[in-house]
């Protein structure tokens, strides 16, 4: 089966897609090398519907990929969560603003063990962290909720 790679990175079955300017065609022989020999590419789980292939992920990087996917999910669900600068968080800590919105809430994950040192009472700390846990209990991602998902 031959493939074609679009300039935007999409990899498609050649037989089920129309050529576009800038495509790189992968013939049967090279496809065999990439799939059976080096395992560099793999089909989408829903290839019959989407006709897509992907560059594979090294086994030792799968956990990191899960983190990345989790980050993407969080950013998509809470678009402004990562746009808040540390100064905003500091402002909340300094002024102990009670109504913490999602934009800043997520950032408290880094301060789980130090909430009281930041100046919050135990009750406030529990309320904030309970809310944070609620945010992180997301369908299909619950197993990652205790992971560090902060982006470098």
């Amino acid at each position, binding site marked *: 089966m031959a493939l074609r*790679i679009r*300039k*935007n*990175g999409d990899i498609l079955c050649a037989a089920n897609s129309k050529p576009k300017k800038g495509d*790189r065609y*992968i*013939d049967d*022989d*090279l496809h065999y*090398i*990439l799939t059976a020999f*080096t*395992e*560099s*590419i793999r089909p989408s789980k829903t290839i019959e519907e989407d006709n897509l292939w*992907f*560059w*594979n*992920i*090294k086994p030792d*990087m799968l956990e*990191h*990929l899960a983190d*990345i996917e989790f*980050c*993407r999910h969080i*950013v998509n669900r809470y*678009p*402004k969560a*990562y*746009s808040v600068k540390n100064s905003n968080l500091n402002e909340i800590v300094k002024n102990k603003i009670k109504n913490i919105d999602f934009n800043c809430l997520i950032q408290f994950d880094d301060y789980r063990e130090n909430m009281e040192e930041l100046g919050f009472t135990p009750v406030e700390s529990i309320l904030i962290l309970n809310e944070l846990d609620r945010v992180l209990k997301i369908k299909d991602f619950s197993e990652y909720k205790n992971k560090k998902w902060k*982006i*470098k």
Partner: protein
Amino acid sequence: MENKIKDLLEFQRTATEEIRYVLNNSIDKEYNSVKFKILEEELQLRNGFISDLENLL
């Protein structure tokens, strides 16, 4: 076959750079910069097999 792999690697390098360029120049620096970092990391992961292919040459 060696030439085919070389061509593919060259294509992949160019495409990756172009994707990076587009991402880097179309984002809102404030909030989308995080999305860019996510894509950038995934791009890097998905290019992990390039070195294996290079070793075949």
